[in-house]
């Protein structure tokens, strides 16, 4: 064997071949970086920041792995043993990292399906968690609950759960019921409520607010109020409307009855 020839079990190569193999890897690293940055730049408008970063890393590692395999192949490295060992290792790692992989794959599909975005208010029905989405990561999604608590939910859990997204649509309905006394004029009460609600800028003019007599209750005539609001101000409006309805009816002298029971005693 000459001074410029080396061997490790099963492989024989020269210094030149080793240098070329290292160059292939180095070029692979450079190309990987360039291609991944370009991919991120191309998809930056179509994807969220986080998704495009994830894509950049995947492309980068893929190109580097291809370069390493090409270099090893150039050095005539026999992969048979590695593949066999890799197969066993893969099975062991597969079992050990089942949930990690499931979360990763679920995260990938959440990115494609996009049931919610950062900033959306959502409710995860299965775990009864609700809040504003603050981050969508590779393995988990983070919510800030409405009482300010940071909550991490594994992506697999989210992907298989029923999710209510309160922010997906531009407008949402507020429904509330109010009871008025049986002695009151229903048409007049409806008119008073319509006028009052019309003063609130956050209540949409179209679709028009709908107020109707819904039920002849035990103690009251129950009016149902349906109003539409921009999703962004839905909660603000919901907090205002109940008070405004009460104030309007009080001001007009329309009685909101409380539960009362008339008792008769037989005069024996």
């Amino acid at each position, binding site marked *: 064997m000459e001074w410029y020839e080396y061997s490790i079990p099963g492989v024989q190569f020269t210094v030149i071949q080793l240098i070329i193999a290292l160059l292939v890897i180095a070029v692979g690293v450079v190309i990987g970086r360039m291609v991944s940055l370009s991919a991120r730049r191309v998809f930056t408008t179509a994807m969220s920041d986080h998704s495009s970063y994830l894509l950049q890393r995947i492309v980068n590692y893929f190109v580097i792995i291809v370069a390493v395999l090409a270099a090893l192949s150039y050095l005539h490295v026999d992969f048979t043993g590695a593949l066999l060992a890799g197969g066993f290792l893969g099975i062991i790692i597969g079992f050990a990292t089942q949930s990690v992989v499931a979360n990763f794959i679920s995260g990938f599909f959440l990115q494609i399906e996009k049931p919610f975005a950062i900033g959306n208010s959502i409710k995860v029905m299965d775990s009864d968690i609700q809040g504003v989405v603050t981050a969508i990561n590779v393995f988990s999604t983070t919510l800030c609950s409405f009482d300010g608590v940071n909550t991490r939910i594994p992506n697999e859990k989210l992907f298989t759960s029923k999710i209510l997204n309160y922010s997906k649509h*531009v*407008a949402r309905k507020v429904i509330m019921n109010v009871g008025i006394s049986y002695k009151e004029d229903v048409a007049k009460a409806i008119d008073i409520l319509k006028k009052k609600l019309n*003063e609130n*800028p*956050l209540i949409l003019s*179209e679709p028009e607010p709908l107020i109707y007599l819904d039920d002849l209750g035990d103690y009251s005539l129950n009016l149902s109020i349906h109003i539409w609001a*921009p999703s962004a101000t839905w909660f603000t409006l919901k907090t205002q409307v109940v008070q405004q309805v009460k104030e309007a009816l009080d001001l007009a002298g329309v009685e909101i009855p409380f539960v009362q029971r008339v008792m008769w005693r037989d005069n024996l």
Partner: protein
Amino acid sequence: MGLFGLYSLKDRLAIEINNERIIVEKKSIDTFCYRRERSDEIIESKIFTANSATELSVTPLRPIHLHQQIARHVMVCINPSFSLPPRSEVSLTLTVPIEVGVLASVVETSDHLLDFFSISKPKYALYGPPESGFICRFHNSDLNNSAGSMPYAEATAFVRFENPTSSWVSVHRIVMDAYMFDLYLKDDIVYLEDTKVIIDDEKTAQVLLNNKPPMPGLQEAPIVSDALKRFRLGLLERTGLGVKDRFLMEYGY
């Protein structure tokens, strides 16, 4: 004298626009106190610094600043609605809402929006279905109102409606992207840029804002703190797509 325009900063400046009272008071050599009152109630109050070149500018604004996170479109409901025969066109006068802006202005530099308000009470409406529609600032406009637009609350819009289809159509409303509005001014009367509505079919129409004044002799109102329109205009010019801003009304008109 009109209320829109430039005011030099003095020891005390008071401007009254309908029920809104703007007061600027000098606090020190370069510090001023800005205050807006409505029925003796202070609505807005802030301190700003200024040099000798600074002036106060009161100007009409596009209706996009109030409730900014809610709406960027305007829906003008036409009262009464009108019918347009096949292959015909008509020019009508409508009104659109505007806001009033107060700016600290230094010649040949950018302006700073100190405050904005709306003389008319804003209302909003949904155009289209909740899942894909638009929240719009809602405005009722009389058709060919002889009294003209309400000063400081509305801009006059000369709109040409074209119906190239072979059927009669009834027009109840138009929807526009308010970010694309250009406003023009003459003697405190505000005008919307030249506007055209083309009926495509029984449900769809295009609203074209043509980026030019509706008549000669008008002065353009400044676009405040928004590079979007300039960028878009530049893009339209560079790509040769024509200098028009187009909104497609796909949920009826």
